[in-house]
């Protein structure tokens, strides 16, 4: 049965990437525009209460794509808004965290100390 969990993660993750690819190729968006679109989409899906079921269904297939970043932030903001009402929408902004950002900052900083850009073709 575990195999199917992997299969679903593979397929859902793959499909989200395909949506990104179509945005780039057919929609002629830059990578930056594509990622922003997906993040906002993840945020809206969470607002509609659809992203959590997707995570339950697909596991890493839904948490690894960047859409989950929008979901995580929205989740934090909505949780605060639920608790504290109007003030919560604002304070929620300071509560929200994303391990992806923090990790990327730390490792980015460390990598800058170690690596140099190399113009290799292969």
């Amino acid at each position, binding site marked *: 049965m575990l195999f199917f969990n992997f299969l679903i993660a593979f397929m859902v993750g793959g499909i989200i990437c395909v949506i990104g690819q179509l945005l780039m190729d057919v929609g002629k968006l830059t990578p930056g525009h594509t*990622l922003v679109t997906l993040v906002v989409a993840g945020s809206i899906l969470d607002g509609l209460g659809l992203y959590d079921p997707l995570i339950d269904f697909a596991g890493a297939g839904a948490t690894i794509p960047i859409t989950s970043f929008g979901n995580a932030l929205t989740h934090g903001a909505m949780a605060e808004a639920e608790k504290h009402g109007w003030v919560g929408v604002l304070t929620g902004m300071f509560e929200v965290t994303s391990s992806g950002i923090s990790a990327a900052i730390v*490792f980015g900083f460390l990598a800058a100390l170690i690596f140099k850009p*190399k113009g290799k073709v292969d």
Partner: protein
Amino acid sequence: MDPQEYQQLEQQITPPTPYVKNVLKAFLVGGLICTIGQAIMYLYIIFFDFTDKTAGNATTATMVFIAAVLTGLGIYRKLGAFAGAGSAVPVTGFSNAVVSAAIEGRTEGMVLGVGGNIFKLAGSVILFGVGSAFFVALIKLILVTAGVVKW
């Protein structure tokens, strides 16, 4: 030859975007990255005190770390050139954007170079992520207050 005629000619000669090939590559690589994520998640659950809920952060951080190393070694660039959105859309692609910008800024010093450039590419993702989180929460709160939906 006027610009319109020229653009027709240009389009005839320019090879078309290989949509199907690109989509397949994105699907396979994107799916594979998520599968690796799933495997790491299970490892965290099985060998450490993590649950489905709490393993997510650890998994993301691990994936980000792996992508940071691959970026430094120049391997993620090759992966990106091959897979397109397949490697850009997963959180590893976010890591790639942050880390590559940080490495690039090194020659301008830690503050102006690394600090000033680290979010050159990823900054918009953070801005729109946080911004849309704010507005979605706000709209939901309004709807809940108006009694249209429940939390």
